């Protein structure tokens, strides 16, 4: 099935690709998590001026293909002369920066909705009890709402992490040499599907089940009281 000399020769490239995939995943995930916390709070806010812009942001990002977003940022912005002359142009010229920006925005939109959903599921009594004890709004969020919501969000967040990891394959279209790009290069050089895409599929498969495994452990630790079934990976955007 595999042409071993070809696979072995390509393996160092595949591992370099794995490194790029993991770095993309890590920086986008970190950015998305940090941004989603305040955005989810705005999303569930009673104040329309706070919740509407966040809804619009998640709606637009979740309603358009990631590939098109990537092309808009990486290829599209060069259209504008003011952009090319601006001080930040050196950033937008860089595929790494564009990939980070697009993946971060994408995962922020999905994660915000996941976190907002988890916040809304908070039992009303918990909130009332905290208010009756005279806690401030921030105290309520820090001590009551987030500890519960982040726990409830774990299964869906695990799907989001797998989805984002799969979405990083789109970076192969903007010159970043991650796993899928390495596979395409090996394919064009050797015209063998198994040695290129097959090997890459194994890499992604192992990655997926590592992520799922890590989240199963986290759920065992943080959702012990629920002891519910763990869901599998879900589609990317």
């Amino acid at each position, binding site marked *: 099935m595999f042409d071993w000399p070809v696979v072995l020769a390509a393996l160092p490239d595949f591992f370099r690709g794995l490194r790029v995939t993991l770095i993309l995943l890590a920086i986008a995930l970190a950015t998305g998590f940090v941004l989603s916390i305040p955005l989810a709070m705005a999303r569930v806010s009673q104040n329309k001026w706070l919740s509407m812009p966040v809804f619009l942001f998640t709606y637009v990002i979740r*309603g358009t293909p990631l590939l098109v977003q990537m092309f808009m940022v990486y290829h599209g912005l060069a259209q504008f002369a003011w952009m090319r002359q601006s001080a930040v142009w050196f950033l937008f010229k860089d595929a790494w920066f564009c990939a980070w920006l697009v993946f971060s925005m994408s995962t922020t939109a999905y994660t915000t909705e996941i976190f907002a959903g988890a916040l809304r599921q908070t039992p009303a009594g918990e909130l009332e009890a905290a208010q009756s004890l005279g806690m401030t709004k921030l105290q309520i969020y820090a001590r009551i709402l987030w500890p519960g919501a982040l726990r409830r969000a774990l299964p869906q967040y695990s799907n989001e992490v797998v989805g984002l990891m799969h979405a990083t394959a789109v970076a192969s279209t903007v010159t970043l040499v991650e796993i899928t790009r390495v596979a395409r290069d090996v394919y064009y050089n050797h015209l063998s599907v198994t040695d290129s895409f097959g090997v890459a599929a194994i890499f992604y498969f192992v990655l997926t089940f590592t992520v799922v495994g890590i989240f199963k452990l986290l759920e065992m630790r943080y959702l012990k009281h629920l002891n519910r079934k763990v869901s599998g990976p879900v*589609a990317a*955007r």
Partner: protein
Amino acid sequence: MILHGYLPAILGGLKSTLSVAVLSLLVACVFGLLGAAAKLSESRLAHWAADIYTTLIRGVPELLLLLLLFYGGQITINNLADRQGWGYIDINPFIAGILVLGFIFGAYLTETFRAAILAIPRGQIEAGHAYGLRPLQVFSRIVLPQMIRHAIPGFANNWLIMVKATALVSIIGLDDMVHRASLAASATREPFTFYATIAVIYLAITTVSLVGLHCLQKRYSLGVRKVDF
């Protein structure tokens, strides 16, 4: 002139994007129903086959699967044709794209359909059998009408993901909206204008789908009491 006269070309691309999405959804429904049937069947072999299908597909990015199945299928078919002496077969990327996307999303729909079937009280199916309905009758008269209601949320989600996934078929050489936009972008040197245009069109498809699915949900939930918290 609007979009330098490229608007008809883009709309032509929209037609192929929509046909790919709709036709792959149909293919995915077939694979999904087969998968769900296999997962719920008594046969261990069918159960394993369906498990391997859904686990493998859901563990790998769509883009990679698309490349793997597209090039892999092409080579397999041509090897086969070579052995049979049929000569070189040029595979139509349109049909290949539909089959591959359908096969991929069939795995996701398998889970949606399986859960929807499980949500139907077992007694109803047993009652159907007790009345002497044939298995196909039980499926079409008892399971299917109720299953649709349970499957709509998951189905809607998959449809939206699928419409967006059709953007990826441009990479295997299908002449869809993204492909047309990139051609127009390089011809006019206005990439942002064209990519933004198709982004808006995708957003419109999403919006229309959400409204449509909401109506469908209402239609199939007639007579179901809502729970008020």
